[in-house]
């Protein structure tokens, strides 16, 4: 097989091609699309969903599914902001470490149930999401922390930009790309990352080959929780608001983006680059719908269609590959 035909067979190539076509079409309809301000805004909208997608990607490669990340993100975000306000703390690094740790602990709890009781990840994460959201609203509070009560250090961090020409590009994009690079190294260049693929492909074989599958499960869900926690606080910093009811419906958007990026819901397949493209495609679609003044409710229809069509395509591809 030549390098070119191999490249053409990769699902990332297809996503990239579709992406370019969509961008050209949108650009024709509305030339303002290509303005740097709009593109930078679009990129900024990728950051939080993108980091969450990377966490879901890891879980999906391992053959599982994670429906708890929005709940973990909201818990990490809200608890950290409340703690900062209570302590009067003004900093950035420590809060982000705290939020990440909260997410990590929640993720490890998922892993405990999934591994110890051999439970289906969907049920475990559905349950833990409900528990975490319920506890947060019941024990911690239901009030939205507005811009006037948000820690100024977080707001300053979330709105930091770099000037490119006359436009400002959010620095958060580099955090996202940095995390993506780390995830790529982890998934493709470390044994622990290859263990995730092997486990998702065939858990029993992974055990026979000598992988520590327990460690893999804890790693996958712990990492997913940690990324969700980090993304949660980053989200609050970027919108200057901490809402304990935030991230409702993110499950679908993020899973749609990951599937769109070519990951298999049956495990064993998926890539960081594909996921980045999938996230970009999804934000592009939602962004265009907003620009075209299409009602919020219809966005759900579009995202739902995207997830079904993308899954159908990957299923079709997988079946064709087997024949």
């Amino acid at each position: 097989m030549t390098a070119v035909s191999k490249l053409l067979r990769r699902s990332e190539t297809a996503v990239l091609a579709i992406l370019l076509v969509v961008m050209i079409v949108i650009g024709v309809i509305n030339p303002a699309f290509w303005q740097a301000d709009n593109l930078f805004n679009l990129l900024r909208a990728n950051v939080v969903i993108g980091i969450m997608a990377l966490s879901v990607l890891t879980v999906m490669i391992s053959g599982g599914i994670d429906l708890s990340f929005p709940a973990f993100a909201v818990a990490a975000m809200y608890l950290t902001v409340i703690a900062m306000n209570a302590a009067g703390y003004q900093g950035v690094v420590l809060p982000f470490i705290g939020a990440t740790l909260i997410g990590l602990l929640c993720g490890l709890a998922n892993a405990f149930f999934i591994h110890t009781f051999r439970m289906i990840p969907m049920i475990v994460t559905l349950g833990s999401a409900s528990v975490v959201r319920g506890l947060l609203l019941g024990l911690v509070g239901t009030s939205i922390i507005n811009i006037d009560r948000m820690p100024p250090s977080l707001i300053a961090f979330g709105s930091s930009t770099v000037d490119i020409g006359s436009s400002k590009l959010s620095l958060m994009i580099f955090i996202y790309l940095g995390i993506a690079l780390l995830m790529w190294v982890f998934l493709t260049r470390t044994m622990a990352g290859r263990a995730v693929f092997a486990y998702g492909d065939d858990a029993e074989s992974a055990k026979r080959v000598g992988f520590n599958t327990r460690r893999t499960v804890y790693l996958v869900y712990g990492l997913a929780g940690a990324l969700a926690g980090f993304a949660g606080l980053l989200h609050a910093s970027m919108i200057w608001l901490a809402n304990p009811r935030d991230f409702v419906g993110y499950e679908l958007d993020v899973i749609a983006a990951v599937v769109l990026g070519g990951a298999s819901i049956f495990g064993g397949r998926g890539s960081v680059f594909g996921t980045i493209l999938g996230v970009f495609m999804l934000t592009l679609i939602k962004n265009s719908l907003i620009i075209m003044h299409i009602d919020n409710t219809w966005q759900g229809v579009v995202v739902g269609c995207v997830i079904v069509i993308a899954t159908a395509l990957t299923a079709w591809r997988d079946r064709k590959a087997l024949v």
Partner: protein
Amino acid sequence: MAEPLIELRAVTKRFPGMKALDSVDFQIFPAEIVCLAGENGSGKSTLIKIVSGIYDFDEGDLLVDGKPVADFGPRAAIAAGIQVIYQDFSLFPSLTVAENLALNRLLSEGKTFVDPAHRRRLGAEALARLDVAIDLEATVGTLSTADRQIVAIARALMSDTRLLIMDEPTTALTGREVDRLFSIVREIQAKGIAVLFVSHKMREMLEISERITVFRNGRKVEEGPTGEFNEARITRAMTGHDIGHERHVWAGDTEAVPRLSVRGLAVGEAVRGIDLDLHRGEIVGLSGLLGSGRTELAMALFGMEPHSGDIRLDGALLRLASVQDAVAAGIAYVPEDRLSEGLFMQQPIARNVIASAISRATRGPFLDSDRLNALAEQVVSDMRIATPDIDKHAGQLSGGNQQRVVIGRWLLTNPKVLILNGPTVGVDVGSKAEIHRRIRDLAANTGLAVLMISDDVPELIQNCNRILLMHRGAIVDCLDARSVEEDDIHGRLKGLR
């Protein structure tokens, strides 16, 4: 003689309520090829698991290189150079060939980071050792079964392997692929590695091995150089009695209107211009290499493949556009893969047998459970299905009993034509003879016409009155089973490649 590589002395393994192995002595010497024979549940899988360190045993000693080993776990087995290739190969279908090959070594090196170039080098080395060419960057899921097996073998030989255990290695292979496997096995042997085969197929055991050990009910019942064995002796040792080799005699009238008559049947490119007559009471064998079109022919007769040509049943023209058409006409089909195509594993036997004849157990729109149970009991006794009751799930039965459920189900529809595709694949010898006897009885007593598709030549010779060979979509040979010899058919099949 040299020291045995691994030796079991009076090893007993108990499971609740049974002795899986009963005071077994067993040895394997370096660079020998040993075959392990035995019916399902005879203890051969238990033996493999003890030798590979997965099972602990209750009594006896295990010696590696003449020295007793106290705590023999999976790691100790791997350290002693023992590698097992399971039937499912334990490969990763979404990963590349190179990665599948390299994983073991990379894991034992204990590195944190993976270098793709190093990985490819390890993979290339592993394939070079077997002198085979497989694309290292291909994902394993896209390979043929035979190539996947070679990847599994290559992977097993990456470490310092001294004994390679292969569990039913030839089940999914075609004749030519078996030949290639055997030449690889001989190369492995030439490198000083011992190979332990577990197989159902006697012909292959006799071809490849130097020593045969037969197990029955947890005991070693026979052992000796392969030269001292023939199929009858292995069968006798496995089952404890002689399996009758009666043949199917058909003395019907070839001039009568055939039960099933096929003229000019074509299925796309796979089957071209087939003419075929099956008379009442005939059992006609059909063999051919994989891809000869035999399965497509069967599927067309069962209404599952669009086709052209005439199909007549007792002289009346049939239109078989769907499975429902075929069932209504009285055609029954037992598929090749009963696990995925034939049985509802999580459902009780009773529901499984009634699945194709549900209208016989209904009252109005409702199921009549009394009638259903009566029919199910009848099938269980007719087919001699070994089960305590009809509520047991199909998945809990042995392979032979599962196959009887599938065949029994069709008998409830009172078929006129029965198409069997690989009727005894994965069924052990005793059960196989029972199924054969039942099919011959049905043909002789009810006027059923049977088309038996099989790779198992002795099975065809024993049960059929005529044997057809198919090649590239056409019937190329028609043999009289009374006068044909097994080797003759094997020779003809090889000639078709």
